[in-house]
């Protein structure tokens, strides 16, 4: 049974067709990244799955439950974080979570334990009695995540959860999502921060103008597009011989000696990043920095999309 099963989904707002026949299959436990420019149809697709867009064509199912005929059962299976905070600022964090625990009809005897658990998971235990309006943006977003975990949903629908967060909050959010991934949650996440999705997602889908341009694992998309991977390296004792030996390494396409680093380009699958690391180390170089380039995801994105909206 698929956790998320979308077939030929179409969403119209008046004359505007925001989603033009998207098909998605996400098995349980997968983290699926939804990437696309603004107005591409990401939020519309997620809102359909969150039962907040009753008018749509095609088929949409969550854990085998049809959204059109059983939205009330679907709501039990999903946790939805919109692209805004959605928090009551006149409540404390404790009241806020107890509010939703009651709304999700958790047994009264279990609520305190569950609330404590999700607060611990989201690292908000010390903020339990703080008014929500006193929390930072990152904390509010983590509180939103704590909310959706209260009823232990199988599928998490996260609409740009890292939007507007500072780098520290983004890193904290990413770590939290990794923890959820390890807990076996199925996550559908949309974001503009491509490299974070690349690190987190088992598969990604690129959407533009209401259509799915491509979907697959990050490696598959690289391969499909012929995009070169890149590794940035800084060594303490850089020599011309090291550059020459790297150029001679099988699988390496290009080595560029830049002012503060060496940029090594290679095709996906031709050589592993770990092998490059071992090779440099074996050459006697003292590695100060070794950074696989994440921004090539953006190259893929730019290559696939033309910045169109629906």
């Amino acid at each position, binding site marked *: 049974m698929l956790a998320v099963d979308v077939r030929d989904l179409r969403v119209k707002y008046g004359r505007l067709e925001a989603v033009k026949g998207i098909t998605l299959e996400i098995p349980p436990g997968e983290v699926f990244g939804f990437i696309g420019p603004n107005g591409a149809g990401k939020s519309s697709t997620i809102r359909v799955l969150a039962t907040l867009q009753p008018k749509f064509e095609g088929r949409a199912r969550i854990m085998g439950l049809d959204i059109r005929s059983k939205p009330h059962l679907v709501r039990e299976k999903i946790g*939805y974080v919109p692209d805004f905070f*959605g928090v009551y600022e006149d409540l404390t964090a404790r009241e806020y979570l107890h509010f939703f625990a009651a*709304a999700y009809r958790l047994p009264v005897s279990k609520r305190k334990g569950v609330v404590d658990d999700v607060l611990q998971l989201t690292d908000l235990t010390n903020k339990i009695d703080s008014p929500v309006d006193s929390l930072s943006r990152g904390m509010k977003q983590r509180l939103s995540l704590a909310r959706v975990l209260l009823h232990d949903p199988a599928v998490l629908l996260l609409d740009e959860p890292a939007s507007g967060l500072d780098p520290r909050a983004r890193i904290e959010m990413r770590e939290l999502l990794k923890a959820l991934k390890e807990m076996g949650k199925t996550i559908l996440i949309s974001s503009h921060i491509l490299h974070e999705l690349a690190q987190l997602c088992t598969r990604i889908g690129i959407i533009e103008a209401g259509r799915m341009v491509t979907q697959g694992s990050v490696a598959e998309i690289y391969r499909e597009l012929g995009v070169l991977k890149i590794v940035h390296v800084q060594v303490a004792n850089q020599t011309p011989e090291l550059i020459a030996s790297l150029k001679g390494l099988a699988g390496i396409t290009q080595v560029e000696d830049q002012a503060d680093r060496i940029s090594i380009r290679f095709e996906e699958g031709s050589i592993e990043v770990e092998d490059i690391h071992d090779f440099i180390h074996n050459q006697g170089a003292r590695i100060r920095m070794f950074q696989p380039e994440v921004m090539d995801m953006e190259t893929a994105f730019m290559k696939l999309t033309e910045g169109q909206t629906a």
Partner: protein
Amino acid sequence: MSAPGWSFGLPLLTKDLIEQAAHRRTYILRVVYAAVLYGAALWIYADISGGGSQAEVLSRGQGRQMFLTLVAVQLAAVIILLPAISSGAITSEKERDTLGLLLLTKLSPTTIILEKLISRMVTMGTYQLLSLPLFAVVYGLGGVELFEILAAIWYLAWWSLVIGAISIGCSAWHRTTAGAFISAYAIMPLVVCFAMSCQSVLSPAVAEIWRPSGEMSTMQYFVASLGTIVLLLAMSVPMLIVTWFVVAFAQMHLLQRAFVPPRNLLLEFFKGLDKFFEDLNNHTTSGILLVRDVDTGPMFDPIAWRETRKRSLGTVRYLFRLLIVLEVPLAIAISWTVTDHQSSSFDGPTTFFLCLLWPIAALAIVVHTTNVIFAERSRQTLDVLLVAPLTARELVTQKLAGVRRLIAVLSVPFLTLIIFQATWTLYVVRGLGSFSRGSDNAGVFVHEILGMTLAVLVYPRVVQWLSFHLALRVRNQTQAVLWSLVTIIGLCGVPYLVVYLVGVVFSIDPNDATLAWITWFSPIRVLFHRKIAQPSPWSGANINQVLQDHGFFGLTLNAVTWVGLWLFLRYRAMRDFSSSMGRAEPSGAE
């Protein structure tokens, strides 16, 4: 390259006028207003013509009655419509986060305030222009001097400016349109009283100049005209002062309060009172608590819990205070009536209190009910609530828990008043206390009870469901409040309008029983039926005649209509909630 040079423009005014012109409601309101204005004029014309020929009507010089009615309708429109149109002028910019952008431009705060004010004045001016042909008719009918018409136009223009400025001032001060709207209506009477008391000193002088004293010579006419102009200008001074003061206030606070977070002033006031009483208790009793305020948190109905524990008008303690605020003046009004042997229970302070309490109650219910939806929208919490596994019925019922409490509290003064009036009528005014066979007191008593039930149980709930229904359909709270109030006024007034129009068209006396029964559709008839049907029950005491005519029939008609409306609106609100909110509900299709 040439220098850009000086250029003049009114970008904000242009934008606001274009925005207003793009709204469908602008035209609907204008048509409705024209219908009311011309309907009133037609009614008066029919009244003064008395079936006579046109030549006869013209020869009587009876335009004064129509003139006074038109001025009254215009003034009422200014007082009712202008705060509604103007209160959102600046708060809407704050709500859309566009005020900051405006302040970054070269537009000064004064320019912003004035352009906003002018844009609302232009809109109001278009309403007032509708009456120009009617003023021409009034002048043609005679009985009114040209100067009086010009003075009335001058007077209306000034009132528009004063009320528009007050509304803009409130809009500059408040964070939300609802807050500005309520403040504008609360402040308006004070400012109006100030301006009117200043004018009352000057107005006798105007009357003196135009006192008829035979034919005036050209010179006398010129002097009188000049004197009137001077006095009119002098009468405008208090209004000018008020307008200047309010505009200066708005200009001063536009920047200071551009980014203030939303505040619940009533809640803050109540919390301040809490602290005061707590300190008082600590000083006087060393903190002894007879009843401890325990909050168990959201156990089973979380939305109802939040509505009743976290909102200012929902908590029991605060509602009790509200009740005291309402009951104390009522007790004074009742005492006054009891001690004043010259008046019945339907004259004097209690009826005045009833007249005052109904609009306040209706406004409180409308604002609170519409806020139930728009507070969620403005906080962007609606979506997270809608994905909770609660049914639409549960969501609606719980969301309205605070409103139900408010209605329960508001019912207490109504009940106090109505029980007093019923008792007073039966035992004091009529001097009867028995329900013996053949006595009609039992009938009167049942009549009172039925009327009381309708007033307390049904009408507030119709107001609640009506405003909830409209809140689901419109885009912002101001629109929802306005449409709710307009609909309530319409529902109350349409039966009377129908009676008078039918009476005019078919030459039937509106008080004739063949038509008068229609007025029983209106709650006004039920609430004030003794007052309307029998101007002096104290002396005549023939209320039974009223009842025999169509009292029980009328009440039953009213009850069926309004209970039906209540149930219909409730059913529609429950049914349409999900579709209006964009929430999927189970369908048969797999």
